[in-house]
């Protein structure tokens, strides 16, 4: 059994230093987490462990057992990759070749390293697929990746990693692209695999919660430097470094619930939205939803991908018209809303801003429409209000950072003096620290302007912080709705329970408790196939 030792690793791309003097050790069979925000150098480190960089200068030493990986030639490297160190990537769809079946791809790797016969390789592929709980693995082996759901693809990738019984699995953000419940399943699977095969696991994530429950030791990275490392429980429990503390703090915190008993501002009554499909059952994106949004409150809507939450959000703004049911704002049909009384903050701040117009113009547009002759002063006020400088008026979206763009998006939503703002996953594409800032801004604004908000998110933790009431969406229906504290403390619906159990938490002890809880809930690994 081999130990991975990284000593003074330095990775440079031209003049940019991605990793600067990183050292850590991972004993055989052990688990190590690397945590950091985007640009921290964690993924660069992962690629260096497999020698996959093509244009980077790598200094320092990476030892793996008796091997010095830094000095390997291409041929030797190939014998290590997949056989002794295997990697699991972030995007399970793109990480698999679309032109070959899952079974073939796994078998190819196995044959390559073991020289086994086609038949034996095929058997091994089915075996590892079974090991990662793919139902009916013999049949599924001849499926193409696009015929698998996201979670199953990630399982298949893990199966591929297991094929040659490696001594180390490097998992680079293996769950970021997945829903919370699926994320929990995959993390549990990795944990189980490690236990049953004795392989070591290097888990890389931006999410402290992901690392907390699955690793013994953790390295916290920031801008290429390891700011802190140690036992996971110790680092997360009593962080020594300021940055680690900042990260922990940035994670959403439950706030004391407010009781808002305002009049219903937006009423949804029996709303359905079905999308017709050629020669197939229509997709019931939203199915019989009735809910009131009370004046002054923040209603959280939680749901995983495909539950219809974006469709619901757009219905609420009147951008989509319901197939059945009514939506009224102050008793008036939403389709006949005037001016900008309902506004929206979008998930992807880049695509929600016209790349060919300055941000000032984008914000000024609604003002012009409402008859303002010279909107510039107003726009500058708004920019200032959301924490941006006046001079940003003349810049283009691609010149701003993600957080700044989302501030622009908020400013634009505020411009026409809306009564209701629908936020559709406004922080999900942002780093943890930025996320915290944007959430804080939204809360401030709500308070100051007396806004009513609907906040749609997949992230239970974020909703717990910001929402007064929470509605849980599953398959286009609201399965549970109630005051935030009540829903979180005593979930009624099994799906809510499952969701809550799947939330990653940064407390290792709590994480282990939840894992045990999940095992007792014993959810079936999803077998649904494939969105196209």
């Amino acid at each position, binding site marked *: 059994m081999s130990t991975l030792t990284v000593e003074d690793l330095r990775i440079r791309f031209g003049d940019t230093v991605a990793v600067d003097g990183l050292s850590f050790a991972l004993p055989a069979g052990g688990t190590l987490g690397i945590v950091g925000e985007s640009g921290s150098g964690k993924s660069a480190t992962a690629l260096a462990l497999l020698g996959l960089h093509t244009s980077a200068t790598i200094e320092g030493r990476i030892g793996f057992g008796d091997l010095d990986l830094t000095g390997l030639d291409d041929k030797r490297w190939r014998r290590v990759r997949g056989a002794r160190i295997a990697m699991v990537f972030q995007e399970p769809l793109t990480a698999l070749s679309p032109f070959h079946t899952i079974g073939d791809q796994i078998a190819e790797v196995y044959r390559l390293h073991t020289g086994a016969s086609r038949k034996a390789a095929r058997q091994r592929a089915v075996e590892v697929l079974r090991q990662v709980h793919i139902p009916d693995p013999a049949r599924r082996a001849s499926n193409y990746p696009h015929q698998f759901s996201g979670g199953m693809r990630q399982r298949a990738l893990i199966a591929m990693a297991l094929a040659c019984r490696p001594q180390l699995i490097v998992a680079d953000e293996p769950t970021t692209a997945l829903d919370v419940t699926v994320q929990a399943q995959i993390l549990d699977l990795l944990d189980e695999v490690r236990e049953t095969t004795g392989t070591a696991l290097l888990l890389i994530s931006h999410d402290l919660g992901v690392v907390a429950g699955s690793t013994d030791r953790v390295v916290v990275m920031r801008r290429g430097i390891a700011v802190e490392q140690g036992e996971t429980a110790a680092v997360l429990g009593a962080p020594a470094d300021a940055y680690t503390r900042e990260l922990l703090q940035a994670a959403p915190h439950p706030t004391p619930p407010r009781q808002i008993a305002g009049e219903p501002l937006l009423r949804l009554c029996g709303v359905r939205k079905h999308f017709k499909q050629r020669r197939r059952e229509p997709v019931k994106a939203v199915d019989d939803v009735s809910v009131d949004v009370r004046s002054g409150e923040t209603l959280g809507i939680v749901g995983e991908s495909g539950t219809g939450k974006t469709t619901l959000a757009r219905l609420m703004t009147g951008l989509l018209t319901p197939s059945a049911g009514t939506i009224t704002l102050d008793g008036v049909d939403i389709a006949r809303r005037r001016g900008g009384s309902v506004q929206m903050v*979008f998930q992807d701040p880049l695509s929600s801003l016209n790349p*060919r*117009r300055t941000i000032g113009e984008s914000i000024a547009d609604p003002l012009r429409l409402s008859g303002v002759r010279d909107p510039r002063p107003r726009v500058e006020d708004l920019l200032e209000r959301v924490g941006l400088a006046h001079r940003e008026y003349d810049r283009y979206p691609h010149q701003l950072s993600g957080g700044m763009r989302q501030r622009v998006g908020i400013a634009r939503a505020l411009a026409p003096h809306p009564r209701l703002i629908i936020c559709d996953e406004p922080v999900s594409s942002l780093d943890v620290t930025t996320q915290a800032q944007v959430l804080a801004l939204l809360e401030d604004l709500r308070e100051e302007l007396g806004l009513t908000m609907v906040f749609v998110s997949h992230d239970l933790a974020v909703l717990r912080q910001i929402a007064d009431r929470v509605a849980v969406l599953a398959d286009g229906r609201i399965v549970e709705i109630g005051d935030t504290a009540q829903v979180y403390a005593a979930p009624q619906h099994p799906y809510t329970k499952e969701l809550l159990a799947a939330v990653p938490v940064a407390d290792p002890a709590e994480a282990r408790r939840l894992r045990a809880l999940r095992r007792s809930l014993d959810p079936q690994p999803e077998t649904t196939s494939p969105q196209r």
Partner: protein
Amino acid sequence: MTVLRRLRGDRGFLAGAVVALLMVLVAVAAPLLAAAAGQDYTTYHDNLLDSARGGVPLGRFGGLGAEHWLGVEPATGRDLFARVVYGARVSLGVAVGATLLQVLFGVLVGTAAGLGGRWADAALTRVVDLVLAVPSLVLAISLLAIVPTDWPRPLLLAAVIAILGWGGTARITRGETLSLRTRDYVAAARLSGAGRFRIARREIAPGLAAPVLTYAALLLPTNMISEAGLSFLGVGVRPPTPSWGQMLSTATTWFRADPMYVLVPGGLLFLTLLAFVLVANGLRRALDPRQSEVLR
């Protein structure tokens, strides 16, 4: 702007742009140039031809000299320089005209399909499919042969090339429009109360500029080839008006007796086409760096 900076750094584009610009200038200034050479494109010079040998120009290199800068045309003795610069007018004029028409048509239909309702889209898409399924060269030949000969030929050529070739632009515009209209910023504009036309003008149109421009830049040389090919086949511009393709078509009987007559229009045609291809290529790379990698 980054686009300009990228273009300035692209040597191929610069070379192409210089040559293309030069050709455009030549075309525009054709009468001036011919006058400067002291020639026009209609005057016969029978004394410069060897009639017994079929009317091949006397002297070396097709009668090239101080009087006739590129020599004279066999069988007529007309000044080749004057004919070539006037030919540039037709070749470029028809290509530019056809391209403008194609873009106009394509963009109108494409945006109408992309922004119109489901029925409008279905109907227009059908029409575009039809246009794309038409064997264009075959139909162009038939059309040009049927049309009465006294119709203004260059205009007609541009129109026929355009009518048979706007499908691509329409398809690209429609696709681009469909993709643009699902962008969140369009939704945001709708929420702030902007109407359909305001959205088309303010939000969609700027996004269409780059892909349409890139596509149009590629259409131009293609149209030039079409014009030359049709003139070569004898259904293009009528011979008293010179065009490069038509000169080449006469030149085929002279390629050995008077190579200059092949080389001058042939070389110019190639050079101009190359220039425009380089410009198109450069534009594409500059306007859409990611796309260019895909298309290259």
